[in-house]
């Protein structure tokens, strides 16, 4: 196996333009008069870069359009060097990009990481498992006694994002082909979800986002309602929010607390 391992290590280094390849192309690849061994390896290296950039462009179309081809290609190259693909699914290659952008020492725009987070969430929910949404009647059927201890099961195709910029407005401007000025810096909560086969997102109040995260964590309705404690009428706000979650199809089911002695 040694020889095959060594040849693959050498070729992998050339085809991904690793900084210190163990072998020069001519040492183990056949060249010809028309095309040297190095030029042949270069064909693969070019395709590696293009393929990864294309995969990112598919998941981050707004970021790509905001940056333009040259800057997006440079970003894709830097990202691939920092996060070479480590899964068989090419669609997973871009999953670290929001964090990568947020950690850049000198980002050209502070809002790019948040824009990328929104786009990645949209890509993720597109491929999530389908679920039947709960009807309003299922809420009514719970009864007031069980309600505070009931937990809310959200559909899988839903993400709650905590962002530092209002990139939903930026996304809208990019979608409309308008000038993409910087997003307003402000704590912003965005919910991303899929209805049928279409993906949507919307800005929600920060306390509602907190309530959704509590629901996702399996906390009971009483704890979820506490997220609205700063509202004038917390119970009414919580109920209105829950009704809107049902309207949008974000709730898959209500789970009653386990009876004593019953396995949860």
């Amino acid at each position: 196996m040694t020889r095959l391992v060594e040849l693959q290590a050498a070729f992998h280094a050339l085809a991904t333009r690793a900084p210190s390849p163990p072998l020069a192309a001519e040492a183990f690849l056949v060249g010809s008069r028309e095309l040297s061994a190095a030029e042949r390896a270069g064909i693969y290296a070019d395709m590696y870069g293009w393929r990864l950039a294309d995969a990112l462009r598919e998941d981050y179309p707004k970021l790509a359009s905001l940056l333009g081809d040259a800057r997006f290609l440079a970003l894709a190259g830097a990202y691939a060097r920092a996060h070479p693909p480590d899964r068989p699914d090419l669609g997973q290659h871009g999953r670290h990009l929001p964090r990568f952008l947020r950690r850049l020492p000198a980002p050209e725009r502070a809002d790019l990481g948040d824009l990328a987070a929104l786009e990645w969430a949209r890509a993720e929910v597109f491929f999530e498992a389908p679920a039947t949404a709960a009807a309003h009647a299922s809420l009514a059927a719970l009864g007031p006694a069980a309600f505070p201890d009931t937990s809310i099961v959200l559909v899988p195709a839903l993400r709650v994002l905590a962002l530092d910029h209002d990139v939903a407005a930026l996304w809208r401007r990019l979608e409309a082909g308008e000038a993409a000025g910087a997003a307003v810096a402000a704590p912003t909560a965005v919910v991303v979800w899929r209805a049928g086969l279409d993906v949507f997102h919307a800005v929600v109040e920060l306390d509602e986002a907190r309530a959704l995260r509590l629901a996702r964590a399996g906390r009971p309705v009483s704890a979820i309602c506490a997220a609205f404690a700063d509202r004038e009428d917390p119970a009414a706000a919580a109920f209105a929010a829950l009704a809107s979650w049902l309207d949008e199809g974000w709730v898959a089911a209500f789970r009653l607390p386990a009876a004593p002695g019953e396995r949860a």
Partner: protein
Amino acid sequence: MAFTRRLLGHGVGLRTKHFAELLAAPPPVDWVEAISENFMTPGGRPVAVLEKVRRDVPVVLHGVALSIGSTDPLSEPYLDQLAALAHRVEPAWISDHLCWGSHGGRYAHDLWPLPYTEEALRHVVARVQHAQERLGRQILLENVSSYVAFRASEMPEWEFLAEVARRADCGILLDVNNVYVSARNHGFDPERYLAGVPADRIGQVHLAGHSDRGAYLLDTHDGEVAPAVWDLYRETVRRTGAVSTLVEWDDRVPPLERLVEESRRARAVEAELLAPGRRVA
């Protein structure tokens, strides 16, 4: 050890651009090939389209990430996902490529050629056997187009492919365009390649377009099938007889109607060659 060819007729690849049409009406072809990795997700539009198409016509699964020739361990989670997808879709068969595309846990998402050595042969055969056991079926392996050849190679590509199929008892997905592209890039006779591949192991044929980059041909799948590739397809059908054939068109994807037209051309070529009175070797 035997391989039984299943005849599905003439098909096309399942591509995003055609999803709306395929949701609205059955595909106007005999069968459809789906890229396995694009459908290993729990939900979303691709899965919905695949389930709809599967109700209309037979589907085959064609993978690009098995990395059967890599010295990395075979990805068991990947094989689990592929087995689960196959259970759901019940494909007529499953194929991937005779190549490698991962090293040291890093995936290139490309189809890199192997050095054609006895060592690589033993390595690939063992992994094909493992994959077939995991999937509970024979798989088909496709020859890839290539731009490099290894100095270490001890046999021509066609001999390596034939030996893998014989020793691992798997089928061959013969990509005629890839044969032509590699023949031009490495200076071998494509008909010699065809003669070296056991016709009775060929379960499927791919046709596709390529681009002429001057010093080499690039397998771009972005246009119609080239005349020289049609000639090679004729030679293939003379050797195999009727064989399930699929036209790939993955970049600058045309309207479905144009793609189907290319597939009908393959059907016409096959019909002309296999008409009564025409002898097929």
